[in-house]
């Protein structure tokens, strides 16, 4: 069968933005996912221009009241807290993206670094690092995150951290990031293990390149397509995790988060469904967007898997 592949499959085109470009060119899933993600990004950047209200403005409480139906002043109405629902949705996109990207920046860096070292070095280093990663895969993440959020917010009382805006949210991002690296590390390790045995890596060693050069210019770029897929998935996961933490009542009281909107409004779902359905919908399309994008990237990275 190898004889067929040569003529039938277009060989991967390693141009700039190659993976993304191919994802958008060839995968409907990828295009839809990218569209959803771009929508959220645009909402996050420009959305606040569309609303006259500050993110935590409860002034509606003194006017139209909580759970108000849509009006000229409040296009989607207000929620149980007297917030303008549209405003909360728009600002919530920022939180979601900051959480998603921030957490994955941490987990991505840590995962690639640790997985890369494990995969490249192999042997005992690999053994120790991967056992360590497995520990992170099996601990009950949410319980630990909730505990740490609690303990830290107590511990910083009276210190400089306290004045930091969105400290609580930052801790949540850090924790999601710190607990999200293990799958990335495993993927990176696997890719490194696979790629380092490929002949072009050996060729680079024969060419006298140093370990660092080999990792950075030979192995990593070739491992990246698989890692990017996982990262896109993890962004969605991180956004969902923050929503869940907020939904459990451990969110940052100062941040505007869709999860928190859900938390405060789900009990009045029957009274005013918009207040819970709208943030639920935003979480849904954001996570869906990143997951579809990941699917598309995955298709683009493995053209053969798509064809079968």
């Amino acid at each position, binding site marked *: 069968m190898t004889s067929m592949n040569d003529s039938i499959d277009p060989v991967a085109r390693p141009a700039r933005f190659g993976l993304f470009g191919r994802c958008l060119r060839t995968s409907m899933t990828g295009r839809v996912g990218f569209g959803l993600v771009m929508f959220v990004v645009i909402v*996050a950047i420009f959305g606040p221009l569309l609303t*006259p209200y500050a*993110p935590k403005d409860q002034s509606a409480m003194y006017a139209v009241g*909580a759970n108000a139906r849509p009006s000229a002043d409040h296009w989607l109405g207000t929620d*149980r807290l*007297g917030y303008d629902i549209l405003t909360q949705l728009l600002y919530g996109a920022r939180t979601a993206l900051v959480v998603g990207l921030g957490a994955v920046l941490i987990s991505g860096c840590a995962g690639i670094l640790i997985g890369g070292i494990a995969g490249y070095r192999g042997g005992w280093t690999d053994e120790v690092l991967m056992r360590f990663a497995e520990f992170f895969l099996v601990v009950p993440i949410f319980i630990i995150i909730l505990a740490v959020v609690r303990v830290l917010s107590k511990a910083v009382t009276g210190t400089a951290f306290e004045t930091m805006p969105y400290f609580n949210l930052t801790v949540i991002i850090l924790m999601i990031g710190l607990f999200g690296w293990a799958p990335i590390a495993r993927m990176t390790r696997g890719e490194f293990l696979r790629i380092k045995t490929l002949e072009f890596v050996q060729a680079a060693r024969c060419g006298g390149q140093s370990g660092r050069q080999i990792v950075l210019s030979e192995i990593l770029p070739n491992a990246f397509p698989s890692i990017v897929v996982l990262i896109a998935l993890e962004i969605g996961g991180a956004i969902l995790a923050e929503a869940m933490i907020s939904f459990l009542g451990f969110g940052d*009281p100062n941040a505007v988060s869709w999860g928190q909107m859900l938390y405060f409004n789900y009990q009045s779902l029957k009274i005013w469904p918009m207040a819970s359905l709208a943030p639920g919908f935003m979480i849904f399309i954001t996570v869906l967007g990143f997951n579809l994008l990941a699917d598309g990237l995955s298709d683009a990275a493995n053209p053969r898997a798509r064809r079968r």
Partner: protein
Amino acid sequence: MSNNQPTRREFLQRVGIGAAAMTVPTVIWSPAHAAEPHFKIYLTIFNNQQTRMIWTDLIGKNIAELGVEVVTSYVPPSEVISRRANETGATYTEGGFDMYSERIYYSTMMPLPDVLFSKAAFPPFGKNFYRVEDDILEQAMETYSSSPDPQKRAEALKTFEHRWYDIQPLHMVFYPEDVIAINPDLEGFDATTYNPVFFPRPENWTITSATGPDVSAAFACWQPPTTLVPMYSSGYNESNIFGPVYNSLMEYDSWETKKAVPALAESVTASEDGLVWTIKLREGVKWHSGEEFTADDVIYTWDTILDPAYASVQNSPLVSTFGSKEAYEKVSPYEIKVTLPKYSILFEGLVLTSISIMPKHAYASIGPEEFRKHTISTWTSGFTVTTSDGRTYEAKGAVGTGPWIPAGFDAMRKAYRMVKNPDYWKETTGNVTEFFVVNIQGADAVLSALKAGEIDAHDPMYDIGTLVSTIEEDWGKVLTFDSYKWQQTCLNLKHPVFGTGVDTPLGKQDPSRAAEAAVYVRQAISHAIPREQIIKNLIAGYGKPGTVPMPVTAEEYDHDYLKPIPYDLDLAKSLMEKAGYKYA
């Protein structure tokens, strides 16, 4: 804030100019207040009750409007409970608390403010976590609780109310009404009593649609109990379950009249000076085990609560009422004579009506350390009780004199089961013969259960007020009760700004006026609480704006003096200015 809100159109017009500057989007927000804050409050919000989370947060934001930095956090109740129990009145940064909010009530029908606010009730043993220690309040509470003269007591209470209204030690946000939805086929729910808190009286319930001799009813309770021994608890979640099992000496006739009538006591008579009391007990009352109820059981109950080894939550009021065990004696098996060291309102208000009498023959052998773990506290297994005539009785939980006999915990249904006591000493009117208390969490869930016919009523913790419009007549009948409680924001009155005032500009300038400055700050905070809006928006109108710690429906509430406190940020700022704070 409410008036200068730009409309969307105005805003969009202004955007034309501002857009250029604003198109550089920032993902990191800037801190809310640029100006140096006047002071800092740590507002800790219990994360277990969303309505309260919302209004507490709203109050925090309004306080921030006064130029105060409000550091808000959502925390589990246990966190604040441990923080406030410190002995020194530490502020939040020192490990204590600054401000939180809670629902609270007197554990008797009679207002007993000294239990909550007297200097004598400072933690760790008392409940005055806030460290209210104003001389006038102190004097008024003292007079009220120790004077046998009803006239003097009424005046003292009035003084208390006025003084509180003037200096606002804590801020009453609103007096809630309890809203309860019941099975439309349930009659007799109004017989429900509230002693020390809400508990149902299913012996008077009639399910009109039921046929046959065995009628079962179920009651939903939000939180699972931690102990079912009455002397360890005063919470809804627990008295819902043990309430129907025990009796006290006096009980409340109905919620309408709020009149105490004899229960295990047949009569209670007092001397002129209110110091010597004669209690005649009802004869022929039987414990569930078949043992006769006598004065020994009352003495045993009081002795046990007074014994510090048992660590009862009722220990402190009993000690302050009786002083010691010397205060009472058994005159005959059916008569007890009580000689109080000094008059105390607590005797009538709490000892007679709120202390469930425990069976000596069944409980005396249980040591202090075993009490909370014993079957009488858990109902999860059984134990054998031997009566004085040598018979044995297998108890599946507690042993009481009440209309319901515990039948253990049904783990499948997460329900405590009881069967009707056929030998109950009092006439009952209902047809229910089997009663369950079910643990259900969440207002939506409880209404679904009611709709599905799984429960017939529920406790008031669910706060279903905002959901009333979703209840349909064919499956839910909505009843409202005056809750006799209030929701308050609690301040730590040892705080250097709003407690003692020493850190206010005025207090620094003139230390003798520090306390006065603190009053200004607290008044300012009180005017920053949008009580009407909270009632209208968050509890669907089921409540009245709060003023002082006195149920608004109590006779003792002075409606002439205690006018609602208006939400007025300008007034609040001018009060802050009186304390020396400046506004640009």
